[in-house]
């Protein structure tokens, strides 16, 4: 089997996906689910080889621990039913303690494997640095592990399943293979979205027949995603690689431009991949959760994170933010602080502790590097400051008679949010924290338009024609986004038109990709960015 490097590769779009669709369509209902599972494992094995054992171990252990929890819950319920009213409270606490221990064991096991494989070398490297700083001559051997694909994604799915069984939100699944399909489904295992068991496991196992409408809608979404990647993300790649690798040879204007281009590339790569992933799943009749909702229309950083990588944000909210802020010590702090500091700053004090944990984990989740942790802390500070100064902003805008819902004010907020996001992405993409700061400093200390005036700007990886194509594609995506913001369902609208209009739209999009796609000699396709996290 040819190697699958990303969801945009010919091996995926031209071989694995069509082959799975054909086998799935030809197979009887009871076989379809097995076909999905076998192709999912084949996909995993074709990329990670024998590392598939990590995935299989996760499936086995999650299934077993889920059933263990369920057994303890049933046993606890039986004992509580038979107990006297006076004994119930103590018995309930005892049963819950047991269940919490099992759930914690399961969560620690999975997070522990992820920490060891992904962060082990980073931790040891930093321990050695501390030893050196203390003048100790101890040098621990830095381990090196091969990472199975999607481990950051399927681990979070596994932990959410265990939490949800523990909280009795879902019953433990008796079928190990249904759970296996939920964790291994090939279109989403490499880059998400991070699904919840109750949202997708049933639909996947049901294995509905392929419907014409789903096939058309799915293919349209895949085509749109391919356009984002091939026309935009890949075209921007040379400029970004050049500037971020040799940042010391470029001035502040070029660095600022490349920070904007990288933000655009990351959005196009990740949201384009999500279009392919969600479109692929739709063909099989499975509705995966959306990961993006036009993030660059956001007016604040908090709103941005409700529209960008949505499933990661909701995962951290449900399994880190609320459990922490609802813990006994923080609840007490909230109550006390609210009485002393009022309704705004009181909850903010305890909320900021939980928020810190969320953004530390969010930064670290993206990779083992200090610049990723800095990226998390940067967004933590922005959200915290945004919340802290909100009463002041309300008062100032009120006194100046500025309408917060007016178009100019909303545009100002949108542009300000986008600039703050681009600064964060500069650090995110930089080769290290030191490089990030050096690049950021250059924007202010070495800003000159000389490269634009003498036209050398067009020799760094993108010429005038490239910029024009990027502009047209961004405009197209902006118009589509604007229509979606207004609640217009474009695919449904197109389906209502006659065949001539529909096919004209398909041909136009295909031709746009074929003519303006950045492929062939002279271009280096971007590696799937989120698959590396």
């Amino acid at each position: 089997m040819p190697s699958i490097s990303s969801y945009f590769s010919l091996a995926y779009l031209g071989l694995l996906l069509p082959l799975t669709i054909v086998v799935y369509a030809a197979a009887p209902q009871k076989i379809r689910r097995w076909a999905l599972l076998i192709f999912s494992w084949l996909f995993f094995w074709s990329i990670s080889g024998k590392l598939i054992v990590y995935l299989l171990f996760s499936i086995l252990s999650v299934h077993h621990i889920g059933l263990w929890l369920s057994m303890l819950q049933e046993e606890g319920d039986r004992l509580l039913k038979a107990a006297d009213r006076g004994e119930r409270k103590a018995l309930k606490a005892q049963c819950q303690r047991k269940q919490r221990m099992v759930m914690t064991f399961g969560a620690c096991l999975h997070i522990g494997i992820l920490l060891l494989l992904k962060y082990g070398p980073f931790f040891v490297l930093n321990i050695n640095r501390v030893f050196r700083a203390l003048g100790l001559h101890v040098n621990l051997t830095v381990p090196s592990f091969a990472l199975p694909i999607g481990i950051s994604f399927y681990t979070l799915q596994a932990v959410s399943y265990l939490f949800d069984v523990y909280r009795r939100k879902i019953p433990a699944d008796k079928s190990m293979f249904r759970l296996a399909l939920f964790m291994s489904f090939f279109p989403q295992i490499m880059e998400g979205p991070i699904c919840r068991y109750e949202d997708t496991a049933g639909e996947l196992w049901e294995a509905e027949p392929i419907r014409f409408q789903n096939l058309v809608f799915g293919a349209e979404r895949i085509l749109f995603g391919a356009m984002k990647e091939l026309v935009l993300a890949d075209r921007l790649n040379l400029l970004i690689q050049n500037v971020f690798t040799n940042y010391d040879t470029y001035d502040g204007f070029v660095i600022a431009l490349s920070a904007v281009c990288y933000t655009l590339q990351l959005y196009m790569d990740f949201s384009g991949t999500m279009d392919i992933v969600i479109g692929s799943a739709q063909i099989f009749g499975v509705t995966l959760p959306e990961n993006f909702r036009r993030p660059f229309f956001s007016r604040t950083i908090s709103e941005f994170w409700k529209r960008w990588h949505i499933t990661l944000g909701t995962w951290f909210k449900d399994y880190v933010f609320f459990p922490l802020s609802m813990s006994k010590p923080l609840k007490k702090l909230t109550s006390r602080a609210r009485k002393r500091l009022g309704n705004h700053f009181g909850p903010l004090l305890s909320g900021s502790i939980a928020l810190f944990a969320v953004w530390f984990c969010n930064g670290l989740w993206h990779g083992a590097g200090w610049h990723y942790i800095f990226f998390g802390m940067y967004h933590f500070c922005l959200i915290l400051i945004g919340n802290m100064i909100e009463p002041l902003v309300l008062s100032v805008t009120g006194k100046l008679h500025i309408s917060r819902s007016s178009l100019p004010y909303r545009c100002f907020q949108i542009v300000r949010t986008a600039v703050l996001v681009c600064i964060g992405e500069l650090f995110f993409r930089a080769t290290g924290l030191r490089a990030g700061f050096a690049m950021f400093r250059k924007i202010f200390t070495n800003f000159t338009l000389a490269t634009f005036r003498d036209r050398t700007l067009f020799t760094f990886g993108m010429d005038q024609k490239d910029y024009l194509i990027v502009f047209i594609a961004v405009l197209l995506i902006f118009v589509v986004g604007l229509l979606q913001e207004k609640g217009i369902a474009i695919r449904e609208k197109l389906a209502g038109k006659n065949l001539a209009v529909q096919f004209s739209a398909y041909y136009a999009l295909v031709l746009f990709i074929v003519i303006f796609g950045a492929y062939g000699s002279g271009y280096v396709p971007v590696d799937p960015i989120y698959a590396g996290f």
Partner: protein
Amino acid sequence: MDKRLIEILEEIQPEADYETCKTLVDDHYLDSLSIIALVAELEEEYDIMIPTVEIIPENFNSAENLWMMITRLKEED
């Protein structure tokens, strides 16, 4: 509907109309921080334990749903 519940809600977020609004979370009247404050206050006022599993938009979208959650948790206790 409990009068005290409306008072607590108005203390935390005075801008919403709690008699009619059914989209307190969906329309961002109650954000994560208001929910933290609300849970701490409700637990103290009604002597209940609100587990994390109950922190879902459906329970917090209207005063009526909140009251239903409170009475259910009181009964379970």
